[in-house]
């Protein structure tokens, strides 16, 4: 499965959930397949998707979905420990794992030798899901958080433009949606 197809499937199945999307091509691909005021597109701060998602989940009641990458999660592995310990019932971490740093030229990550699902399970995550095809989130969205979802995707980026929104515009639209 291509990453953009995985992102499209995820975006189609989200309704009222708030989504934090990882820096680089994943945000661009999400913006290209479906834009929504419930999306927060990261334009910097690699590694922070799971942490921003956790903070948002702890601060309010709506369900939060953080889209992370293998390279990004490896930069902030301690986040899994904090998420598990804080135990947010309304938080889903979706790892789009292409075993490489896709936005910087597809250099390999250690996700090709280490199974990141096993790390999440060893930390204590009880609800973990693995997908290679048929990305059906029905059970994921009903599961009690914190949930860890591991999606294996192909390497490569879609030919999509950069996001033509200002950072402040992304933030303010997102916060207005939460407060409405």
């Amino acid at each position, binding site marked *: 499965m291509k990453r953009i197809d995985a992102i499209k499937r995820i975006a189609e199945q989200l309704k009222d959930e708030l989504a934090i999307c990882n820096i680089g091509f994943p945000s661009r691909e999400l913006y290209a397949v479906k834009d929504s005021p419930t999306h927060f597109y990261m334009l*910097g*701060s690699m590694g*922070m998707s799971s*942490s921003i998602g*956790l*903070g948002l989940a702890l601060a*309010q009641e709506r369900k939060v979905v953080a889209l992370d990458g293998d390279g990004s999660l490896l930069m902030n592995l*301690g*986040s899994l420990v904090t998420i598990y310990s804080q135990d947010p019932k309304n938080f889903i971490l979706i790892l789009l794992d292409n075993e490489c740093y896709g936005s910087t030229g597809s250099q390999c990550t250690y996700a090709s030798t280490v199974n990141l699902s096993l790390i999440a399970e060893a930390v204590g995550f009880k609800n973990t899901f693995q997908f290679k095809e048929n990305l059906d989130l029905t059970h994921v969205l009903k599961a009690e958080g914190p949930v860890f979802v591991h999606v294996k995707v192909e390497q490569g980026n879609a030919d999509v433009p950069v996001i033509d929104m200002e950072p402040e515009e992304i933030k303010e639209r997102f916060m207005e949606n939460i*407060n409405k």
Partner: protein
Amino acid sequence: MVSLPCINLGKIIEMVDCDPDIIHVPVTREEEGFGICAGAYLGGKKTAILMQNSGLGNSVNVLASLFKLYQIPIIMILSHRGTEGEFMSAQIPMGEATPGVLDALEIAYFLPETPDDACKVLSGAWLLSEMGGSPVAMLLEIGFW
């Protein structure tokens, strides 16, 4: 409020942990703590981080490319080690670098000399942070304690 420990912050962290009006999230590394605070702000909370200045170094990118970029406020309460009275030489290089790192990021900071001073400037510091769309720091030097 997220926290990382410093011997000088021990009592404050205990008080934060006991306060039912504060969501306290101990974190594994400062950068992660900043990410959590950014998310909590998006969700409507006022946020702060309690940390030692030694962790400022691993937070420079998140401060620049998340907080500055999106104009997100936060109060950074830093135990400023390596200042006058420091007994551990290892703390001195980062202690000396700290104001310069904050200056480079254009993060304003207060230098309260006593706990009373800190209380007086705290609410103004949040207003400055929110209105200015930038983190604001409070440096608590060794002499503060």
